[in-house]
């Protein structure tokens, strides 16, 4: 039981964070995901000790750390903009947490060398932050957080300040690092694709509440409600009546579960737009006045704008919602 949140409440004006109970998975990659204003950053800051909850408890290995200030918690945090000390070299930056612990010079040096080796910044240690690239700065920030060997590593939107090109690379690196060090990582992001690709477990927040927690597969395939269904990946949501289903209000399915043909299907419409995305095509089909359905097809399927098409979806791929909540998955 590494990190548990119990009955956490934190109010900011009209917004309230309310987490009744959550346990983060030990030695695995946890992602806290949510749209902006969902409370994910507040959750992270509460775990770090930079904010204190109005009520509730935070337990780390069954020890109550709710009232501990950040500098007394065994938690590392990598800030979104890295927050490196501009007046210190990379080496000195990484040394700060160790110097505070009154470690010997040799021990400090040994630890810094080791962490720099793991992070691939051994050659940059004498540089100042302003002389480092964004990616290197981030590695120094990670090194600074890791060097004190924290029980939990928190990452605040770690990919948001990086170029799109190196994002995928860093994504792989972060996961690898977690595996190598067998760390408990909590990574906060608003990017659902990032979350899906990296997480062992996703905690999805909306309006200050945990709406669902589970593996990326569960979140994608078995969304608990319409919010989760819509937030993750491409989705189609239609009134149940359109499909002749009576025991639900609305029905959802993923674009890749639908098939197009000229003659048979549960829905019929006109091709409105085509997006060629390399490995697949995304087709928008207007089935009603203005109501659009997304269908993902192989790139070689040859549909044209204006074509009348039939859409078929296997019953097993349909997700039924009643009052916004999924009734079967």
């Amino acid at each position, binding site marked *: 039981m590494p990190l548990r949140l119990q009955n956490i409440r934190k109010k900011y004006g009209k917004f309230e964070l309310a987490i009744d109970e959550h346990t983060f998975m030990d030695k695995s990659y946890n992602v806290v995901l949510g749209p902006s204003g969902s409370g994910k950053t507040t959750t992270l800051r509460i775990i770090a000790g930079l904010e204190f909850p109005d009520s509730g408890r935070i337990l780390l290995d069954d020890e109550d750390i709710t009232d501990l200030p*950040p*500098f007394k918690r065994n938690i590392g*945090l990598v800030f979104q*903009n890295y*927050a490196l*000390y501009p007046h210190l070299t990379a080496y000195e930056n990484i040394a700060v947490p160790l110097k505070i612990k009154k470690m010997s010079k040799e021990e400090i040096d040994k630890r810094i060398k080791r962490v720099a080796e793991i992070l691939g910044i051994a050659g940059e240690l004498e540089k100042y932050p302003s002389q480092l690239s964004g990616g290197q700065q981030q590695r120094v920030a990670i090194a600074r957080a890791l060097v004190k060997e924290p029980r939990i590593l928190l990452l605040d939107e770690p990919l948001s300040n990086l170029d799109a090109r190196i994002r995928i690379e860093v994504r792989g690196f972060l996961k690898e690092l977690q595996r190598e060090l067998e760390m408990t990582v909590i990574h906060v992001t608003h990017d659902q694709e990032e979350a899906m690709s990296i997480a062992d477990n996703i905690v999805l927040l909306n309006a200050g509440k945990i709406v669902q927690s589970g593996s990326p597969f569960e979140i994608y395939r078995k969304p608990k409600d319409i919010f989760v269904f819509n937030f993750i990946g491409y989705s189609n949501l239609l009134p149940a009546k359109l499909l002749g289903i009576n025991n639900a209000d609305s029905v959802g399915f993923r674009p890749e579960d639908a098939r197009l043909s000229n003659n048979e299907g549960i829905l019929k419409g006109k091709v409105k737009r085509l997006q060629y995305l390399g490995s697949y095509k995304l087709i928008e089909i207007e089935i009603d006045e203005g109501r659009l359905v997304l269908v993902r097809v192989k790139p070689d399927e040859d549909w044209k704008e204006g074509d009348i098409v039939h859409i078929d979806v296997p019953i097993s791929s349909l997700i039924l919602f009643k009052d916004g909540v999924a009734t079967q998955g």
Partner: protein
Amino acid sequence: MRKINKYIFLLSIPAVAYLFIFTIYPILSNFILSLYTQDVLGNLHYTGLDNYLWFQKDPYLLRITSNTLLYMISTPVLDVLLAIPLAVALKRVGNKWLFLIMLPAFIPPVTAASMWYLMINPFFGLAYYFTKENLASSIWTVVLVNVWRSLPMATLIIYSGLASIPKEIEAAASVDGIRGAKKLMMIDLPLIVPQIMAAFVLMTITGLFTFDPIYIGTSQAGPRILDNLAYYAFDQFYSGVPGYAAAIIVLMSIISTALSVIYIRALGSRKLVKFPAPSFLPSSDLPAWVHKVVMALYLFFFIVPMYWVIAVSLKTPIELISIPPTVIPKTFSSANYMLMFGDGLPYIITTLAVSSINTLTTLVLSAPLAYTMALHKTGGRKLLIYILYLNATPTLIYIIPLFAILKYLGIINTWWALMLTYPIMTIPVTTWILYNYYLKFPKQLEEASQMDGLNPLRTFIRTVIPLSKSGLSVAAIYAFLYSWGALVFPLAFTYSPYDLSHPLSFSGAQTFSIFIGLLMSPVSMSYGGVAAAGVISSIPPLIFLYFGRNNLQKIWGSGGV
């Protein structure tokens, strides 16, 4: 209390406690003291409103009130009227000239006054060539000195407003064909009303509490001629009538509080006013040479007294009293400097030591306070407004109760008295400067330090201080300048120069400002010495001005509450 809050409290409490004891107590104490009268033995008796009723009978009151009003009104009016063209020229010609324009503001006030009284001496001064009248007894000379010294700050405030007009608005006006005087009336002035207000009110308070020029001028003009309420109150206090002095100070406190409220409102004001822009106003830019000429005229006004004091300081004793006075010294002599250093040494030592120590004390107290105010909202709006209030409140207000405290502590006429009281005049200004500076400090660095295991106290020392060198240096310059030029506190709390035969007693604490006043007095009448002392007293501030020249705008940068 959470642990974090405890540390934040520890960072802010020293300065807050100091300000509470040394400002709120004296301000309240004046009210009580004004209800008492001191007898010949020095005992106080409760006499109710007698001190206030004496206002009606006081034979000097009419003259003093009219002098006060004249200083209080003419200083800001002239300052603002003169500052606007200068600020406009500055914006056109480029702010590299700002450094020269700021010179007078950095000259210690007593020195500034002495410079002018040397200039207007009808026999030995430059005035010989212009008038045969003795301007020393004119109250307008006091106004002149006031304006000379406060105009740069008024200009800086108004210029900072002009400089902050968004480029897009300038461009839009230009596209619409609004230029020159028309643009000034239609665009510039309406947008900088808050700055004009702030400058006006600040200079009104300066005018109300005019002190140093009267202190120097009185030795030339004779008693009571130049007095205003501030000087008169001080004089009453000095001659053992503290109750009446307190009553006058209470009256002035009320006026200055009202003015401070307007000042603070003006700082935060976003109110814009429309000005009439009659169609006959030219809508074309004045050629650049006009602005240069305007600038040159102002610089001439600013620099002439400085030139004169240097020239006088280098004249031989004979040449000093030759009539007509020589504009350029015929022979250069170091006699005045020798004389000045001989007698002035104890004053210089005290002033340097006390100013340096106070600079350090001020930073140690105000930097953590400003930091917690900016990043943790310590004290909230109330504390911020109080700091601004203190900024606009002259030190004269505190002297009577402080004198009692210092007397109780047995440290009158010692360095300790000055070291204990000087932060009153410096903490508000440095806190305000640093508060604005720390508003831009990245809070994440503080949080990163805490994540690295530093508590907020160590965070402040190891992360914040190394990263705020530029802010701290501007604050240090101010703290030093205020301490270096101080007059009211040393005048009130000391009576003899530093006792060099018992250096470790640290007793005798008259400062350089007082020394200049003594040299200026009719008894010594040492014009050469005054000039030399004036030059010496200007050197440290001018060194600071030189090093701080690129940060001048930051000094009066952002504002708003």
